């Protein structure tokens, strides 16, 4: 039978309008009591709220609501801001090969990132951002969950992508087989916290052969025969299971996995061609950008894609050819082509691209090891989803050490929590939402302290 018939058969079997990657939220939380570890409230045991739909509150806000999808690029290791997107030419230090040029009053190292230099009117830069902490893994997690990981709810707080996934779950249609939240080259991506597993980042590293384990080594014919026999033999334990509902729930994962196997839509989206890989710079990062474009184009339910490009932690010999110039070139090749291709495909206007490291690096002269060390001043990069091209928000002093102009309405340094708010606003998600289904029962705030309006979206990006 062809793919469509397979899906039809599948979803005749499960007529309820539950998308492939989701569980029935909150009702399944009760079922998942039996297979959930600590961290998921056994609500009826704690005598808290019933296991029905959780209480969710928010205050009305004006959202940008321009983006259908998000691509979040984490520059792990923390790139030097003054050598890249908050460029400062330091006499006697900065290599002349960086060839800074000024376009529309914005200085940019055209020698280091020539392609991005040629498209400055297509992206915006925030130069007034500062990190809270200078420890890599702490700050990386902070950036991905939009709050202090060492705080009380830190351990159970979901990745921003998981929040987007849970919010956009209702948009999924039964024929869509991709995860809502995809993580490429991001083995260490922050998880879904207390949210159910279906909102976890689906972690994949790009290959030219497609998604791992979506074919059986003994071939499709053997696999299909095995699949049929498995259900013939095991359905008594999977349907109305005498051992309990967790086995029925597990069967749903088998069904969803089967939907991704031998599926040309999956193969097409999750494998990159040689031509594309070359166009994007022939690197793992470039390949991830190819997959990101393909997955979004497939329109199979993915709405948030996280890509990690690491290696920026250049304490030693930062300007050596194999250090900053090489990594910046990887970024330049991959990101520029991604923006270009999304634009050609007519998808850029509905895709918000966000890029940041976990903090910045020391400024001015290099250290004794010819490198740059950790520093709180940093940048953030935005493109797509109607963001005003060429916009620069905020500015720093001549060295890039301190902010001289915040550049936005809140008149203070931009924080990861503001970046988080911006993402939600762009996606039409109310960032003041509080969900009272968290394991501690104190309420999970999408953006910390939103009831006090501490953080908020950078609306200037669209002005």
């Amino acid at each position, binding site marked *: 039978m062809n793919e469509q018939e397979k899906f039809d058969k599948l979803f005749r079997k499960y007529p309820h309008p539950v998308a492939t990657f989701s569980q029935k939220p909150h009702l399944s939380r*009760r079922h*998942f*009591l*039996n*297979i959930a*570890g*600590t*961290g*998921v*409230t056994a609500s*009826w*045991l704690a005598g808290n709220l019933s296991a029905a739909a959780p209480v969710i509150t928010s205050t009305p806000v004006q959202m940008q609501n321009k983006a259908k999808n998000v691509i979040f690029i984490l520059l792990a290791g923390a790139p030097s801001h003054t050598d890249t997107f908050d460029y400062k030419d330091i006499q006697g230090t900065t290599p002349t090969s960086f060839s800074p040029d000024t376009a529309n009053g914005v200085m940019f190292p055209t020698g280091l990132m020539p392609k991005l230099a040629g498209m400055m009117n297509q992206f915006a830069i925030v130069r007034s951002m500062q990190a*809270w*902490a*200078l*420890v890599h*893994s*702490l700050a990386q997690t902070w950036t991905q969950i939009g709050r*202090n990981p*060492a705080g*009380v709810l830190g*351990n159970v707080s979901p990745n921003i992508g998981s929040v987007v996934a849970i919010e956009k779950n209702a948009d999924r249609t039964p024929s869509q087989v991709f*995860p809502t939240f995809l993580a490429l080259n991001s083995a260490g991506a*922050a*998880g879904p916290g207390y949210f*159910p*597993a*279906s909102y*976890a980042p689906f972690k994949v590293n790009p290959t030219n052969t497609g998604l*791992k*384990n*979506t074919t*059986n080594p*003994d071939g499709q014919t*053997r*696999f299909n025969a*095995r699949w049929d*026999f*498995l259900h*013939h033999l*095991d359905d*008594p*334990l*999977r349907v109305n*299971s*005498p*051992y*309990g509902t*967790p*086995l029925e729930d*597990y069967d749903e*994962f*088998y069904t*969803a996995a089967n939907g*991704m196997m031998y599926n040309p839509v999956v193969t097409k989206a999750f494998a990159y061609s040689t031509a594309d890989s070359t166009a994007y710079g022939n690197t793992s990062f470039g390949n991830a950008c190819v997959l990101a474009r393909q997955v979004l184009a497939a329109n199979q339910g993915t709405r948030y894609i996280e890509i990690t490009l690491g290696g920026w932690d250049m304490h*030693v010999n930062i300007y050596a050819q194999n250090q900053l110039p090489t990594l910046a070139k990887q970024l330049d090749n991959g990101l520029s082509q991604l923006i270009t291709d999304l634009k050609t495909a007519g998808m850029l206007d509905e895709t918000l691209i966000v890029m940041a490291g976990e903090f910045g690096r020391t400024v001015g002269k290099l250290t004794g090891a010819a490198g740059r060390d950790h520093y709180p001043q940093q940048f953030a990069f935005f493109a797509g989803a109607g963001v005003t091209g060429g916009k620069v928000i905020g500015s720093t002093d001549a060295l890039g050490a301190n902010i001289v102009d915040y550049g936005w309405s809140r008149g203070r340094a931009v924080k990861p929590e503001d970046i988080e708010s911006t993402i939600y606003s762009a996606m039409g998600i109310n960032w003041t939402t509080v969900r009272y289904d968290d*394991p*501690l*029962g*104190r309420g999970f705030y999408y953006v910390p302290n939103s009831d006090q309006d501490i953080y908020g979206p950078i609306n200037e990006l669209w002005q």
Partner: protein
Amino acid sequence: MKRIKWLGALLACATATGQSPVSDSQCSYFGAERERFVPKPKGAESDSARLTRQFYAQSTRAGSPIRNRPYQGTQASSNLIDQYIVADLQKNNITPAGITTDYEFVRRVTLDLTGRIPTTAVVTQFVASSDPNKRATYIDSLMATSQWVDKWTMFFGDLYKNTQSNVQVTIRPEGRNAFYKYIHDSIAADKPYNQMATEIIAAKGTNSFDQTNGQVNYYPLGIVGGGPSQDIFDNQTANIADQFLGLAHVNCLLCHNGAGHLTTLSLWGGQTTRLQAWGLSAFIAKTYTHSIATPKDPNNPNASYNYYSLDAYTTDYALNTTTGNRPPRQPLGTLKTVTPDYLFTGQTPASGQDYRTALAQFVTSDFQFARAAVNYQWAQFFGVGIVDPPDQFDPLRLDPNNPPPAPWTLQPTNAALLNALAQNFIDSGYDLKKLQRLIVTSDTYQLASEYNGTWDDSYAPYFARKFVRRMWSEELHDSVITAINTLPSYTVSGFTADSTVYGVTSPGFGKISYAMQAPDVVNMPDNGGAVSQLLDTFLRGNRDDQPRKEEGSILQTLGLMNDNFIESRIQATGSGATASYVTNALALSDQQLINKFYMDVLSRNPSATEMSLVAAQLETGGAANRKNNAVDILWTLFNKVDFVFNY
């Protein structure tokens, strides 16, 4: 009332004869009651009749002989767990599931106690044994194995979050290995749990790499950066409160008073102040946990490695911070420093006494320490704690003789049981094996997951059936290799070989075959390779911000169906000495092959229905197809839900 009499009658007979099932020829009490157990041909079926009919009907259930006996726990049971559980079941008129069959029991308890399925030889011998005490005897034999040590080393490694690198700090493989060795050797030596807790809380040492003193690593693992040292004391205190007292709310209280924050969550928490929580943190305030650089490695001069030392600060917990991870700490009136005060009892260190030694004494002698410990164990064996989540205790809602004011209710689902278990644990000398023995020899633990009748979720707090649980990543790995009996050999980076860099020699632990022997959950056992990636999909967490979870995922099922780890083991390859598992099995008759596959993988025989289905499959397409069919059948068994689940 009839039900109680019936249960009592059944128990009286069972204990009198020591055998099951009960027959009226062995029990004179039954004589008078006999006619009640004959199913009535018409009219409404009585409860007892229904139960009896179902009891005997189970003899035809897939693959297993008749369930040994219906649940017989009563308040007269010798197992204190059963006494309390049955009392509640009766009070609430809930019928529990039946007792596990021998096949179900041997598989479950072997997985639970030692982290892998039993071998066919073990299952066969156990089922065949006519020893009336065979379950207890088998339990004792499991507890004497190195596998038992490995499983519980992994469990406590999870609890104490022993890992070489977390979001805040890197203790390095050397530190992680030293702590692993401490946990492993303590478990192996049957160290009383209060002694283990004392050695950890009161740890002394200046070299975290020292394998004779690995518990020193507990404090470095609690470091937080980006703030004053009070942030570190607070985090270390929060870890102690969570892991040894089941009180995660202490972490909340170290930022702010409970009032207005914990008021609806915890009766105790809502009335407790930040100052009182500081009184706990003050026990840590004179501990200076800090890193020391190892000697420079001349071959790698740019690399910098640190080990940790526990030295001493001289001042008490100061209220003088304005920055960091927690809200400012400022003087309260004239109070500028906080001295140690164990808020649950008001105990303070004796004059000149080392603070953490005092803390260890106060914590381990606290009844809550015993409660938390037994509850963490209970949660592991039963899938849910008597207080759940197990680190959310509310100290003011635990005493059934002193229940909290309305609308608060007692927090534990069986408060009397929890306290009795805790007291029992204390009386046993905080003996982990004795606690586990009490748990797994109970009828309550031995209930089947299959429930006769209509299950209602409201029965769950009464533990009226076994809640299935999915295997841990490590259990899956170890069960697959046990079933096929092909043991891999892993060279685990940072664990296998001696480490002699940095001027410190840390002995290695040699290669491992079983995932449960790994000292950590990250990149184990093949250094982040294909096996590690497969095991990660089963959500073993990272011992930091991602706890171990039992949830399912698509990546898990894709892996079970297609990953090389299982696929490579089910192929029919080789001959003679190199013959694979399936190749060897092909020499057997259909019946023998199928029985072998079922026993090796699922620890049971196929039912009559299963045998006929599988035999037909084996013969499909004739002799030429038999080899492929055998491989496909083996694949199917590994993908049955009663493989990956512990039921």
